[in-house]
């Protein structure tokens, strides 16, 4: 009789354990401050599951009613209550990291979109391979014991602090590939750009839908690489240069200086 009960109990709990082990999904939210851009502050929201390595980046402050972005018909930010410039539009775009396919898919502003109606393009690139250097330094951030690692990304040195007790190999921005979740990331000595984890928790139901966001099946669709757009960007910059000085194009020079469309970082000049 007792054996029967044990068998029933085991049979009942067994699939439950299986379910728990397979459905671990989490979300995490980062705060971001860019001190170079008038202390622009934003947030990033990520979802992560072992089923589908999912990491999407959003500017959560845009959801705040007080800080809606207002643009003109060319897509330029015009609302003076915000200080976003075109340079930072990329960080507002959703991003999809897939470790199995070693691919990152993201949305960028199309060069045609800048000149007329806002328009975006979805591109796929190989997942950036970060060369992390573990320093062994550690510090406590609230309840988390974090270890320091450094890397070079796009010709800049980033310092990050990750927590091995959260075995999610991801982080803010493009970062990933450490044996723990990145809790803090900083650029430069003066912390010119800083990310800090604000919250992380269990994801009960996914909020993001990659198909709706335009991230189609990787196996059936071939997406352009970002570098494929370089020629278009060059044309765009040329047009802007031609307009510089025109009374109708007061901000052209600013935009030219702020836009860095070439993301094919072959060398660090």
């Amino acid at each position: 009789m007792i054996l029967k009960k044990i068998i029933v109990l085991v049979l009942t709990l067994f699939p439950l354990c299986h379910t728990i082990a397979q459905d671990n999904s989490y979300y995490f939210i980062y705060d971001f401050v860019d001190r170079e851009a008038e202390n622009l502050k934003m947030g990033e929201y990520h979802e992560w599951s072992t089923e589908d390595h999912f990491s999407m980046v959003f500017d959560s402050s845009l959801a705040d009613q007080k800080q809606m972005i207002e643009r003109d018909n060319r897509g330029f930010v015009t609302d003076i209550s915000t200080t976003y410039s075109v340079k930072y539009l990329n960080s507002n775009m959703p991003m999809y990291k897939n470790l199995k396919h070693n691919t990152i898919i993201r949305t960028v502003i199309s060069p045609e979109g800048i000149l007329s109606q806002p328009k975006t393009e979805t591109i796929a690139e190989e997942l950036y391979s970060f060369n992390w250097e573990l320093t062994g330094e550690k510090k406590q951030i609230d309840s988390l014991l974090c270890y320091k690692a450094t890397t070079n990304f796009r010709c800049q040195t980033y310092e990050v602090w990750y927590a091995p007790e959260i075995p999610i190999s991801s982080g803010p921005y493009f970062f990933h590939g450490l044996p723990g979740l990145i809790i803090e990331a900083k650029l430069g000595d003066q912390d010119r750009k800083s990310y800090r984890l604000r919250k992380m928790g269990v994801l009960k139901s996914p909020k993001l839908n990659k198909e709706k966001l335009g991230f189609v099946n990787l196996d059936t669709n071939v997406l352009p690489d970002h570098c494929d757009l370089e020629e278009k960007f060059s044309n765009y910059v040329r047009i802007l240069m031609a307009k510089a000085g025109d009374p109708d194009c007061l901000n052209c020079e600013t935009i030219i200086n702020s836009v860095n469309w070439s993301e094919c970082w072959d060398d660090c000049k």
Partner: protein
Amino acid sequence: MTRQSIGFILLWVWFMGSQALSQDLTVVVKDERTLEPVFHASVVYTVVLDHDTTRNFGFTDQSGHFVIPEVHSRASVQLDIHHLNYKNTPYLITDPEDYNFILEIHLPARDHNLQEVHVQSPSLYGDGIPDTLTYGVDSIRTLSTPGIEEVLERIEGIQIEGDKIFFKGNVVSKVFLDGVDLASDSYMTVVEAIGSDIIEEIDIISNYQSNPVLKAFNWDETVIQFRSDEEMRYRLSGNVGSGLSHEELLSLHADLVGISPRVKNLFRFTHNSLASTVYRPSSQNKTHEPGRLPLGLLDQTYQPNGLYAPIKSSLYRYNRDITGGVLLTGIPLGTRGNLRNSNYFQRTTLMQSNSMKNTHLLPDTTYHYSHIDQFSFDNYFIRSELELDYHTDQSFINFFLTGNLPFAQSTEHNNFSEQLQDTLANFFEFNDGLHIDEGFQYTRDAGEFILDFNHHLKSSHFTEYWRNSNKRTDKVRIKKANHLEQLKKQNFQITNALSFKKPMKKVNFSIGVSHEFQREDKNLEIHSGFVNELPNLNSRSKYTRHSYSVLTEIQNARKHTPLLYHLSLKMGHTDIRWFTSTENKERNKFLHFELNGNLTKRFSRGKHAIVRYKLERAPINPKTIMPDSTLSPNYLLYLGYEGPGIKFNHQLSIIYIDQRIDKLFDYDLNLTINHHPSAVVMDVFQYLQFSELKYTHRKVWSITGHFNWTQHLIDSHWQIEGTLSSNYHQLNKTLNSINISTHFQSFTTENSVVYRKRSIELKLTHELYYTRIRTNPGFNRIDNFQWSQSVNFKYLAQSEKLHLNLRAKYHRLGGGNHSLPTLDISINYHPSNNLQLRLTGHNLLNQKYFELIRFTPQSTSLQRYGIRHRFVGLFIQYFFS
């Protein structure tokens, strides 16, 4: 074999041997149960060989393999394997050769999710300590935020509506400037005048409690503190404005804030003919009127006599010129104290006539000056107030000296809410106009020392006699108050009050009764109360404060009006109030019942859960209630829950209308859902009514729709708003109201990339209303006459630094002291950092006159109103910092 050959062979053997000793170590990670390979498990390894330590990491591939290169057979390898779905598993391998350099590791499944993590401090945006959020202004300020008001609006959770600031839905009660509360309730005057570059940090303090003894408890109060740079020299910021129109209508005003590390100043000045008054610091002593029953609960139901005595009265006001200014100065004394004083002056020319009974016509010109000094330290203060009033008919001087000093001899009875316990005062007034008040007050048990001197010089047509007296033993206090006032020759008013209070060790027992009699209308009011309080402040863990009170009130406003009964019972966190009246006609019999309270559960680290409940049955009196969208519900059931991380409100209203009224149909639905902090807000409000009431000749059609959906932050950026309303009112030819308005706004991310919001707004409004005040026990209502038309047009130019805002608005509001009818055509322009130029066309509409209408509970009357023609002027405002 030569030596060289032997050497070469030995070298080769050593080389091959060393090669054989170092080999790649392959780690295969599999699921313990299914033996499936585990993908992307992180493997952190430390290889120790002869005191050399190598530490690195990597991830398993899709076959679960991970290779550690070049591991010596004598090396020890420590492995730390992490995966989201499996338990963290450390391994130590001391002899890799035994495994043949292939190690298969089976990971047990993780049986629970990772713990939720909140990284709270230090935040990137601001440092947070419990209950206090600190924001560095530099991190928020931009070119487009010249004033601190714009900076505040950029802080998440801050909302500014009119003259109030809300933080996460809670109204901000005070705004401190380096610890100094300059303008009390009118703090927006300070906020609007401070330049953002003067302020260094902003503190938002929730759960605010100034009393250090009570700081361990939860309070709802939220305050904001601006902190300036300590090394900053004196800085001035503010705005000035002027307006001019024909017929000598003009407006000049200035709001200036001066800040230095030692002294904070707020100066406001106005000179206008628009009846716009300057902010006036209120005397905090004038609420203690003799003749009022000194029981807190009874005070709530005390109605000024004028509400019941005259059935109908009218007040006509003409154009008035106001010149005035206020200078408020605050000097912080360390972190615990401050010194504050105010000087207020106003000259008012008021043309008005009044048909209200028992009230004489007010004079043309009034001069008022007041001076207040207050020294505060921790929870204690001493304050002196001086008031001088002069006008053609009467003048008086008031002087108050009040304090709350740390002379408490008993720590068991720290009833800080009790302000005035013992009063010894005599008031004399003579026919020649000399009026002298004098009083002395000392309360020992509550830890207060209050010294109250009144010198009241008055020249009037009235005769008043006030007398307060009390008897006190060590444990019992009896207070009596008598008030006799001759209103007219044959009309007088007598008010008597008696209270008995016995403070005991844990119980304050109070009982009081008062009655009021007025001859001409034969008013009779009897108030009686019983209060039993159990302050349990010493027990912090339970957070309870029980009080039981029974309050009865009988009012007989006039002979032919019904008696009104009022019963109030307070038990712990639950309030029960009950009103009823009797009258022969069954139609007007009504009952008001109200039950509300909350259950509180405290958790560790200051968290708490509150369940609020409210049940209300309000009267629907068809003769006195105006049918509109804010009709009081007959039954209201409210449930709310606030707990750690969540807030939920649900409200259900049911309207029930007396069926004997002809042709009345009503439909109401309220649904409110709040969810914090992920900020899901849903608000649905619908209202539909059709009425045609014969005996009042009233017709009502009303449709109101409201829909609001907000989904914040971690969700998909949705916001929907919708409003649809259409009203038609006609009541006995005195009320005409037509209101048609539609409003809809949607905000979507459009593929989560493009954020669109049209920046052109056009808004038209037209309303016609009239004013009346209802004073039924249990609820008061004021409806204003208003006629408003507004046109809004907003255009944002492409340049970031140019902000253009066009707006046209016409609004007329009568019946209140602060009604300022305007035609508001404004153009805002932000050309540079701190300069904000606002060009506004105001309709300097002179209020010819309007009526103040008073109602008795069961009657209404026909009113008249009139307005003069309108004038348009220009108004320029310059904000500087």
